[in-house]
């Protein structure tokens, strides 16, 4: 393993750079000097746009990426499968259904509250449902949960498609739902951003509590039992914790493809497989990736915005394949 201090410094620096680049990027590019002026309290419209709109969005993107990085580590650790990703157990389908309701059904609450709330409820509810099903059917192992997850995801996806067909017309467009499903960081107000920061910190603490047992589980179920771990129970607890993390990410960032899968792998190459360093490292990698991808999404195609999930998949996919290929050669 490389000297960890250098790695952490490099990761931290990369994140700061990514955030600065992100805050500069847009259809109307700003310079770091503009950022400085805006942060110093300049009242020009352009400066206020940076402070009120762009910077909160960039920071939210970083936090969403961090949460996805954490979620990915949990799910890959629990299922001991490098292909596991945070949306595995129905949370994507549940969140998308919740968001569709929030976006298309007129309810007596402002959408800025309703959307994160229902997305969170959908994501978490779907995972709880999956665990419940596998428990009732007596298959509380990884395979049972995965199958229940696939089934629940299919049902929720169908429900969402029906709602989208039934409730959209010329004025309530499918595009709203589609662009959310394809990933779109909502720009929070500063107080909400504070809340998201607290949630993210809480999620990091929560997942760090699981780190030791995830290491033990990584040795294999038999070994884990020998180490005194109640595997069935731990898997359920870890999945519930992971799904809270993912639901929080989904509530603020929509469905961002691929980051939850890739970030843990990249982090593992940097800090090794032990979960205590892996969790924060993966969070940092996820934050960097999503911040940069969000900058591309906002700036690449003026005056339009590309859905974030498309950017992470299109730009992140080849990059990840390249890393993977280099890794396999050595």
């Amino acid at each position, binding site marked *: 393993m490389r000297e960890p201090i250098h790695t952490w410094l490099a990761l931290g620096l990369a994140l700061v750079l990514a955030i600065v680049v992100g805050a500069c990027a847009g259809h*109307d590019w700003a310079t770091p000097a503009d950022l400085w002026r805006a942060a110093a309290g300049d009242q020009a419209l352009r400066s206020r746009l940076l402070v009120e*709109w762009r910077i909160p969005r960039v920071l939210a993107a970083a936090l969403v990426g961090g949460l996805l990085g954490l979620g990915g580590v949990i799910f890959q650790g629990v299922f001991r499968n490098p292909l596991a990703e945070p949306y595995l157990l129905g949370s994507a389908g549940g969140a998308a259904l919740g968001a569709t309701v929030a976006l298309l059904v007129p309810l007596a609450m402002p959408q800025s509250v309703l959307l994160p709330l229902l997305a969170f409820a959908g994501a978490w509810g779907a995972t709880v449902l999956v665990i419940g099903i596998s428990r009732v059917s007596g298959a509380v192992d990884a395979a049972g949960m995965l199958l229940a997850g696939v089934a629940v995801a299919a049902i929720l996806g169908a429900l969402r498609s029906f709602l989208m067909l039934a*409730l959209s*017309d010329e004025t309530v*467009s499918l595009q709203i739902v589609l*662009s959310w499903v394809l990933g779109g960081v909502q720009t929070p107000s500063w107080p909400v951003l504070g809340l998201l920061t607290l949630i993210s910190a809480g999620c990091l603490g929560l997942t760090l509590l699981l780190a030791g047992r995830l290491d033990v589980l990584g040795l294999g179920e038999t070994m884990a039992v020998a180490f005194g771990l109640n595997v069935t129970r731990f898997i359920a607890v870890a999945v519930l914790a992971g799904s809270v993390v993912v639901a929080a990410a989904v509530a603020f960032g929509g469905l961002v493809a691929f980051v939850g899968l890739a970030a843990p792998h990249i982090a593992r190459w940097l800090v090794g497989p032990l979960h205590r360093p892996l969790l924060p490292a993966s969070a940092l990698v996820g934050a960097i990736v999503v911040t940069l991808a969000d900058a591309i999404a906002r700036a690449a195609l003026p005056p*339009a915005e590309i859905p974030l999930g498309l950017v992470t998949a299109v730009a992140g996919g080849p990059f990840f394949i390249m890393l993977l290929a280099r890794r396999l050669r050595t």
Partner: protein
Amino acid sequence: MRRLFLAALAAGCLSGPAHAGPVTVRDAFGRTVTLPAPPQRIVTIFASNTEMVAALGLADRVVGIEAYTRFPPEVLGKPLVGGRLGFSVDAVVAERPDLVVVTPARQAANQLVDPMERLGIPIVVLLHRSVAEVLDNIRLLGRIGGVAERGEELAARLQSRLDRIKQRVAGLTEPSTIMITGRLGNGLLLIARPGTYTGDAIVRAGGRFALDSGAIAQVSPEAILKADPDVLLFAGSDKDLKELIARPGWKDMRAVKDKRAHAVVRAELLIPGPRTIDGIERLAGILHPQAATR
């Protein structure tokens, strides 16, 4: 007509000089929007809003439009602030607007209302669920644009044309009508329905709905065949209409056999602005050809 016109003018004058002091309006979302002074830099999202603002004589104050606005000619070439993939907060703010007018279609209201509110840029949301609401929008834009009397006058003129159509078709048997407004990739057709301004236009032109699809705008071609309307309307080109009625089974439809399948102008019936009244007049002529001279 002239009397109405004068009455509107009088009403406009009585309401006082509109260009003095702040103006407050309540928009379609129930939001209260206050403008300290008449706007000089207006971003109008969507063709309908651009057309209404231009019809009020304010085209030269429009500083931003979206990519699908094709009318009137004097606004073409203005900076684009959005298109198919959404609307850019950056691009809107770069125009330093003092008024943004938007309709909750595509993602416009979603993407723009919140940031504009945070930046203190007045943004008005308009809906158009009926033709009356379209006229209300013209009045509201007139008030907020500092040309209240022009708005009242234009709305009154359009209203008197609507009244004339009403007289013309009064007492006539309404033909059952279906207007196809679009085709979906999966073979389903979009139709005009009650509760929309396009549906309202059909009723005002003296038609009735042959098929009530409820809240859902998309219906299967079979449902249209089964409803067998007296008149079949297609919002689009004659060529596309021919293609549509060349489908198996459609030739035997009553409307097609009776030569009562017509193409209607999309820009008139699918853009809720002043031209919608032109569309209703034309539609009344199609639905009640015998009444054209009444």
